[in-house]
């Protein structure tokens, strides 16, 4: 934290810095508070001034071997020790080891009478004594402004405060002075006019019933610093400031691919699933099967032996395990083997920052390879849109830095354009799978498609997915001239097509039979004609024969009549023998 900022600007002109050790604050201030100078920390009641100051001291004593003096004007030593003990700081132990000295300064105005001139040399003496007794490098004055209530003569007080800050600088200690936020100025009594090197403003705001603390470096003389307002929170390990904007986009990337647990979905993603370390968005309206796909993914990862952390903001772990059991996912053994961990919390339990910090803590503790957030949209309700985007960005950055594959489910409201509603988040995601309901024929059917998948050739097809007792089945949806058909409509369409094929087959057969019949008829006709012809030909022959006979008879008759007319009798006899019928007929 200290070293990574030591490169920019000219090194000679750099202000020496005093690292606070507070997570994130050193990043914002570029290495810490100005060394050997006073820093003013101001803010309203309950925004963590004292804690920030105390942590500065404790971490200084523990991490940087810089003893510190805490001069408290509002809380007694016992109270202070108890208060910071809840954050895991062993103030009492540090005091015993002479790493920290606590001096409780208290004046009850009613007990004090002013008479004539005075100065605050007593305060200087006490502070100086405390500093010298432990060789302190750090000093905290919490809350110096209490003096304004105790001492009536403001003119003297102001003059003395000016002298005090000068004195602190001369002593070379890095001081943190806390002050109450004023109405129109940074502090109620204008302390900022004395402390001009570094001013940090703390703020506690409530948005939609959820309070979030913010920190802003208002002024840092002689140094670059983050000027934005940064959310911070007070956890059980002290303050952590989480810079919204990550310093750089320079995550390592992996070419390794990991399966989704649904073979057909892998096939849609270039055949091999997602990239390791990518962030995946799974959107859909309620009941489209987001959690199921997420659970599938979790199961697949855990079965490969990868640690999987499942953040659930809607269902309790047991409920998820039970529900997934009904579709054939066995998550419980994976949980027992410590490969899968569920982390459930109500989104409204605490603010976005707290959620984020909790998630960071869990991730750091469990070291997962896959993180699932189901659904991320639940968290979105606990902050403004920009806060949420900031949060998701930080979460993704954090996960990517650790090469953790993350899957976020996102609930879209019915009736919204799916693509539009996720515009804030989708640009941060590497892959986006859309789940949709198709309604028709009195039923709702689920389809999914890959809207985007950076760095891989992915399917452009809409697939229907079925949820059965044995998990998810992705099948081809019917895409035809009448649109996308799913469910029973798809089945109906299939059978319709089958029937059509059958019908055309039957038609062809019928046609064939008709042709056959026609041919047979033709043949019959042909044979009829032939027999007609033969009949006629026979007739003709007969007629020709008849004609021949009658010619002969004519000749015979002529011969007979010639006989009668005394012709040769032998001729007549010969004709009678050769043709008795004719002879009879003509007789």
């Amino acid at each position, binding site marked *: 934290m200290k070293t990574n900022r030591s490169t920019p600007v000219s090194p000679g002109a750099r202000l020496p810095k005093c690292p606070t050790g507070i997570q994130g604050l050193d990043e914002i201030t570029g290495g810490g508070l100005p060394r050997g100078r006073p820093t003013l920390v101001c803010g309203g009641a309950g925004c963590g001034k004292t804690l920030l100051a105390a942590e500065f001291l404790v971490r200084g004593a523990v991490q940087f071997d810089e003893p510190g003096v805490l001069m408290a004007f509002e809380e007694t030593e016992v109270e202070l020790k108890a208060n910071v003990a809840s954050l895991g700081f062993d103030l009492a132990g540090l005091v015993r080891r002479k790493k920290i000295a606590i001096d409780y300064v*208290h004046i009850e105005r009613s007990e*004090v*009478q002013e*008479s*004539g001139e*005075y100065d605050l040399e007593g305060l200087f003496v*006490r502070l100086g*004594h405390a500093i010298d007794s432990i060789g302190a490098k750090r000093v905290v004055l919490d809350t110096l402004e209490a003096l304004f209530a105790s001492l009536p003569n403001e003119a003297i007080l102001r003059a003395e405060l000016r002298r005090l800050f000068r004195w602190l600088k001369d002593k070379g200690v890095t001081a943190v002075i806390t002050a109450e936020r004023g109405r129109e100025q940074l502090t109620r009594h204008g302390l900022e006019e004395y402390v001009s090197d570094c001013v940090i403003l703390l703020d506690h705001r409530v948005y939609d019933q959820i309070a979030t603390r913010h920190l802003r470096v208002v002024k840092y003389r002689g140094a670059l610093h983050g000027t934005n307002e940064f959310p911070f929170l007070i956890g059980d390990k002290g303050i952590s400031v989480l810079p919204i904007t990550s310093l750089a986009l320079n995550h390592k990337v992996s070419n390794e691919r990991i399966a989704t647990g649904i073979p057909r979905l892998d096939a849609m993603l270039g055949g091999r699933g997602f990239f390791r370390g990518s962030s995946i968005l799974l959107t859909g309206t309620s009941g489209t099967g987001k959690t199921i796909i997420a659970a599938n993914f979790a199961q697949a990862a855990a079965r490969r032996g990868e640690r999987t952390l499942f953040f659930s903001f809607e269902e309790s772990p047991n409920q998820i395990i039970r529900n997934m059991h009904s579709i054939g996912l066995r998550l419980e053994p994976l949980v027992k083997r410590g490969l899968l961990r569920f982390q459930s919390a109500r989104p409204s339990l605490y603010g976005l920052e707290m959620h984020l910090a909790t998630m960071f803590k869990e991730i750091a503790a469990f070291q997962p390879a896959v993180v699932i957030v189901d659904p991320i949209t639940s968290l979105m309700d606990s902050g403004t849109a920009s806060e949420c985007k900031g949060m998701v960005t930080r979460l993704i950055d954090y996960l990517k830095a650790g090469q953790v594959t993350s899957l976020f489910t996102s609930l879209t409201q019915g009736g919204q354009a799916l693509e539009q509603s996720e515009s804030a988040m989708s640009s941060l995601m590497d892959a986006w799978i859309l789940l949709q309901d198709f309604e028709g024929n009195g039923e709702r059917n689920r389809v999914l498609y890959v809207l985007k998948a950076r760095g891989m050739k992915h399917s452009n097809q809409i697939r229907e997915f079925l949820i059965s007792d044995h998990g998810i089945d992705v099948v081809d949806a019917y895409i035809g001239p009448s649109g996308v058909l799913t469910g029973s409509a798809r089945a109906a369409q299939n059978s319709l097509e089958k029937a059509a094929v059958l019908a055309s087959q039957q038609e062809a057969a019928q046609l064939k039979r008709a042709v056959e019949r026609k041919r047979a008829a033709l043949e019959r006709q042909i044979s009829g004609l032939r027999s007609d012809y033969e009949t006629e030909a026979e007739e003709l022959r007969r007629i020709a024969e008849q004609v021949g006979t009658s010619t002969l008879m004519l000749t015979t008759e002529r011969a007979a009549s010639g006989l009668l007319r005394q012709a040769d009798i032998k001729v007549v006899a010969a004709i009678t023998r050769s043709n008795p019928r004719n002879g009879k007929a003509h007789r």
Partner: protein
Amino acid sequence: MKIKTAKRSASQSKPAKLWQLRLYVMDQTPKSVTAFANLKSFCESHLKGRYRITVIDLLKQPQLAKGDQILAIPMVVRKLPKPVRTIIGNLSDTERVLVGLDLRAAVN
């Protein structure tokens, strides 16, 4: 300038009530000197014979500052009689000193 003055008045008929006063100073600054002179003259005129003033120089004994919650200098702390009362300043405002040390009641 460590001056210890302890006087007991025999003429007092009332049960002896010793006033224990502590004066915190820082070195021999004009303010400190004035404060001591003023305090002494007050005591002499109002509490003659039944007061004791302890002067503590924080330059020499800085560790003592914590005990009596010393902030401003010079400062007078009335340890006895109870309750503890404090006055800050060089005690130039007589009226305030009388009120602060509750000397009026003692005088009357």
